[in-house]
């Protein structure tokens, strides 16, 4: 028998006195349990994520010395062919483990902490997540892929795409339970401005109505149950934040199939992307390297003058420079009142006579602020253009 639950009524709390009569059995304890369940589940997943990230870290610390030793042993010219062959197999196994560690980290790491770009090269990405898919499916499941190296970059962060793909494969694995030859085939094809990643599996078709439910944006209000489509609609919404989409095929000669549609990162005819153009004028190579990493994370493009033609629509929209370069930049950049004037972000301390224009100053010891400053500059530029 469950022990009774008690609620302290506000009147007693106000007086700071609790009498036995005022402690009443609560009728809400079952609601409380309902409320707690998702929180406990989230906590469990967070713990799992921390453990997995820690395991990936320890795996790397163990694998790297082993690979270095294999390298050193392989360099000995007196070794026999047999030994070379053995070492080659050891290296292959260690490399697989290293890829698994990278994949674990990709899946378990906090996307806000991971230094990942806003775009994904699908062929390289597949190498990282394939070992995880083998780990996530029943032993003996055949997993193969057809993803060309020539495909353009997709506009989605690698860890998000990994999370979605693994969820789909785990879903497919459930539908394949009892299938004599479980198999999963992943293909990627470009269609104009999109790349379509299709996950086919040899399982039974989902329950009637699930494909429709997957496309229901309000489906999150339903409880998450096996094969109900509720998880899928959540994954779909994640993709839609990146202009992508997720659909389930109603019929496939194989069994079931999911299709992930991703926007291609555009390259214009002049070889530049259509995203915000940022000019970097940083004399310290360390600051420039960090700035390039941040641009890659945010899907922004580094602008560079081509043949000295840096005017009109091709001009940079944001300039990141240091204090030494500021005077030169100030002379050649239109004033702020001009709609096309780029926003200025300067790494360094403001000089006594700073230019009469709006500048975001960032201390070299606080380069982490560059990410937020770029986002703000980008939004501000877009607002001014819209008005």
């Amino acid at each position, binding site marked *: 028998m469950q022990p009774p639950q008690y609620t302290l009524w506000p009147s007693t709390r106000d007086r700071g006195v609790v009498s036995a009569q005022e402690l009443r059995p609560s009728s809400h304890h079952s609601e409380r349990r309902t409320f707690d369940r998702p929180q406990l589940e989230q906590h469990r997943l967070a713990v799992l994520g921390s453990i997995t990230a820690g395991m990936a*870290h320890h795996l790397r610390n163990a694998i790297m010395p082993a690979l270095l030793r294999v390298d050193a042993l392989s360099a000995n010219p007196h070794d026999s062919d047999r030994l070379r062959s053995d070492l080659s197999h050891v290296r292959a196994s260690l490399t697989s483990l290293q890829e698994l560690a990278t994949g674990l980290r990709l899946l378990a790491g906090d996307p806000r902490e991971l230094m990942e770009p806003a775009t994904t090269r699908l062929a390289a990405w597949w190498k990282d997540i394939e070992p995880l898919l083998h780990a996530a499916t029943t032993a003996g499941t055949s997993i193969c892929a057809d993803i060309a190296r020539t495909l353009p970059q997709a506009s989605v962060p690698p860890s998000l795409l990994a999370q979605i793909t693994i969820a789909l494969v785990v879903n497919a694995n459930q539908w394949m339970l009892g299938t004599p030859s479980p198999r999963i085939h992943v293909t990627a094809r470009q269609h104009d401005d999109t790349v379509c990643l299709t996950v086919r599996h040899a399982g039974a078709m989902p329950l009637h109505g699930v494909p429709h439910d997957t496309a229901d944006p309000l489906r999150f209000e339903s409880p998450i149950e096996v094969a109900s489509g509720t998880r899928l609609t959540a994954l779909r919404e994640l993709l839609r934040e990146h202009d992508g989409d997720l659909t389930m095929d109603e019929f496939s000669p194989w069994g079931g199939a999911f299709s992930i549609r991703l926007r291609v990162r555009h390259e214009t005819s002049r070889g530049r992307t259509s995203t915000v153009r940022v000019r970097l004028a940083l004399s310290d190579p360390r600051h420039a*390297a960090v700035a390039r990493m941040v641009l890659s994370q945010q899907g922004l493009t580094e602008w560079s003058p081509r043949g000295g033609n840096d005017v009109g629509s091709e001009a940079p929209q944001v300039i990141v420079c240091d204090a030494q370069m500021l005077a030169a930049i100030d002379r050649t950049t239109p004033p702020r009142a001009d709609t096309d004037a780029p926003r200025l972000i300067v790494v360094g301390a403001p000089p006594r006579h700073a230019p009469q224009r709006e500048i975001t100053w960032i201390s070299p010891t606080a380069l982490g602020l560059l990410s937020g400053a770029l986002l703000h500059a980008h939004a501000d530029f877009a607002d001014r253009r819209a008005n």
Partner: protein
Amino acid sequence: MPTNAETGAHERFCVLFVDDNEPLIDALESRLALETGFTDLYRAVPLTDAAHTAARLHPDIVLLDVNLSDGIDVFEVLQTIVRDTPDSRVIMFTGHPTAELVTRTMGLGAWGFVSKGVSAERLISAIHRVRRGEAVIELDG
């Protein structure tokens, strides 16, 4: 006049390892010994003296692990080396790279940031590039 490091010519140079993972340092020494130029390889023992060891040896490169044991504050070690041994270039080395670590350590003066998930070739290339004056961020993949 450009130095040998800037022209890429091979020469002897000195690397100091600051890491509590001894099997990793042993293996790194074994692997780097196969490369031209990597003749003076040292390790900081004890780790608490890492900055003093750097000041005494004046290594060309310090390979500094981010997660040091014994409660050592790696950021303090980095700042001390940058301040007291400015001719040594520090490369941060970690199995758990994050954006915050990259921006913080490179803002404090590190010249490189290399993940322990990269191949030996990429690590060696990173060391050479940093010696030439490039700032290098080598991550997974």
